[in-house]
């Protein structure tokens, strides 16, 4: 248990005037039904009646609805934003779930059963039985091809991904590589093309054949989608232009890691690189 969890233990387990887990049971059932469909059709965007949540639209309301709908009293929750447990919004979301459910919270991903995340996959390998809930701002990878949902829905249903392949080809012809920085489009089990949410390209290969359940929630856009364990997830790329992850020319200033995703930071006026997964970095520093 961490400092954050100890603080939360002092708070009441549930909030007066609200149901356990904030959402009423019919609303949770609605989300779970959509999630079941999403798990059965990996990568397919399933519409659901997204509720107005006590966080702003675009601030994790979709991920929050999933977390509140799947969490059980004996679960242990971790919430990160950019890999950081102490990011203000991550703290607010964690506190809301903890206050309305009383579940234990942690910053150690190895102790967590449910992890809600924005923009990262934790550096530690997640295992069987763990659930990773992604907050999704823009669910449709074809949004860049056409802004109209009616058009992209038809493209998905017809498997018409010529537009996104052409986009990739034009990028490659002009720039020598793909310009997709994050939210790199992936093909799921040879079927639907999906946005893995705005995780960096660094994290994309870690979704392939992963042992954990990945659930994606877009509250503002009112869709959920999922990648069940051990599903093929392949970034769109040409055979002679392999997919590239971010490259870092220096290791983490704090823990010395050269095997993790790094952020630029100014330390005493000097630009250095540090791990974006703060808890992973902290544990490595403690071990060394």
């Amino acid at each position: 248990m961490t400092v954050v969890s100890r603080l939360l233990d002092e708070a009441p387990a549930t909030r007066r005037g609200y149901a356990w887990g904030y959402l009423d049971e019919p609303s949770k059932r609605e989300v779970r039904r959509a999630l079941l469909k999403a798990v059965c059709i990996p990568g397919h965007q399933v519409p659901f009646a997204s509720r107005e949540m006590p966080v702003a639209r675009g601030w994790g309301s979709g991920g929050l609805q999933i977390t509140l709908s799947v969490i059980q009293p004996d679960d242990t929750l971790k919430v990160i934003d950019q890999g950081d447990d102490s990011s203000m919004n991550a703290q607010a979301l964690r506190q809301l779930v903890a206050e309305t459910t009383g579940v234990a919270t942690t910053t150690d991903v190895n102790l967590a059963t449910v992890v809600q995340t924005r923009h990262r996959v934790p550096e530690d390998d997640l295992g069987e039985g763990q659930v990773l809930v992604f907050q999704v701002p823009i669910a449709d990878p074809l949004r860049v091809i056409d802004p109209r949902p009616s058009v992209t829905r038809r493209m998905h249903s017809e498997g018409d991904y010529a537009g996104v392949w052409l986009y990739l080809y034009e990028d490659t012809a002009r720039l020598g590589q793909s310009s997709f920085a994050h939210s790199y489009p992936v093909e799921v089990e040879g079927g639907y093309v999906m946005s893995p949410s705005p995780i960096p390209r660094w994290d994309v290969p870690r979704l392939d054949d992963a042992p954990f359940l990945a659930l994606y929630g877009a509250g503002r856009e009112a869709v959920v989608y999922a990648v069940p364990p051990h599903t093929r997830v392949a970034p769109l790329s040409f055979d002679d232009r392999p997919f590239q992850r971010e490259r870092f020319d220096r290791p983490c200033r704090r823990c010395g890691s050269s095997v993790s995703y790094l952020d630029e930071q100014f330390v005493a006026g000097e630009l250095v690189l540090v791990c974006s997964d703060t808890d992973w970095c902290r544990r490595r520093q403690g071990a060394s």
Partner: protein
Amino acid sequence: MGYTSVRDVTGAVSAAAALARKAAGPVQTGPDGVVVGLPLLVDQVAAEAGVHEPTVCARALLQANGDTARAVSLLRAWAATLPRLGSSRAAVAEVRAVRRITPGFREPPAGQYLGPSLDYESRLLDLDDPPGATGPAASGNGNGAGALPDAHGRRAKTPPVPHPFPRSLEGLDARGLVAPAEPLASPVDRTRHSAGAGDDRGAFQQLLGRAETGAMTAMAYAGLRGSATRADPTLVELRTGGLPVRVTHPESGGEVVLGEVEITMAEVALYAVHDGTPDARLTVGFGATVGRVERRAVAAAMLDGGCARAVPGGHGRPAPPEDREFLGIVLDGQEATGFVEHLKLPHHVTFTADLDRIQAVRAGGMAGDDEERS
């Protein structure tokens, strides 16, 4: 088209303003003070939230430091956890009007009643007295007739207004000059249906009913200004009043009136020219909002009418103010403000990924085409 039908021959304008001020009431503090002192602000929040509960709306405004978007967020999240116990079909004809104007008709059947309104008052900022304490003594109901009722509570009522009103368009409708509404709206609750249900006109009406006031006004303005040469909208009906809410009693099965909701409704008639050919019938758009922020109802009616018989523009799709799908994306204030403000959340992971791409392209570009780098 001028306002020839509104002439202040009997003190109607000053009476209308006095009614509106009387409704605003003296300055108080707390939620009740907000309800009484800032009624139109409360109305805007109630409409955008889809929660018609003035005291709770005022409480939300206070908790949000007066930020309407945040107040709406608080209200919607609160309402989302409340069970839906019933639904009610409202009949437009049942509205007990306190204000009714018909800018498209000089002398409509049943007449015009200004009711409480600040529309025709000068906009000189009053630097002397607190709001609510000024204005001439009222002596009419806005139509120059009848006595001003006691303005206890929030709103003044003006009993002499006839009930029910005929629609001003009835005569033109009977002569076959009005195109039938299309498609007919079905009652849809977007908050309890999956995305994609928003294509229906009923769902669109709910979207308009809760749309962000400024965004909806801007889109209606864009349509008015941009397509003035081929669609000339005329406001043919604007009504404010109390709409009785009827529900079926769970045991007796009979109909019970729970109370009245304040509502403003507008009808706009569009005369359109398609491909150089005048449309032989008028298209009518309908808009409604709870409360009295009248531009909400007028803008909603313009957008509804614009979308009803929109024809594709140059690129095979309608212009934004006539594109129901586009409006469905941009008009909800919570979606817009939430997503715009989410840029305040940290983005260093994705920004690092962006920088990595830029550096990679710069490095790759050095080897080849100079033009691509510029």
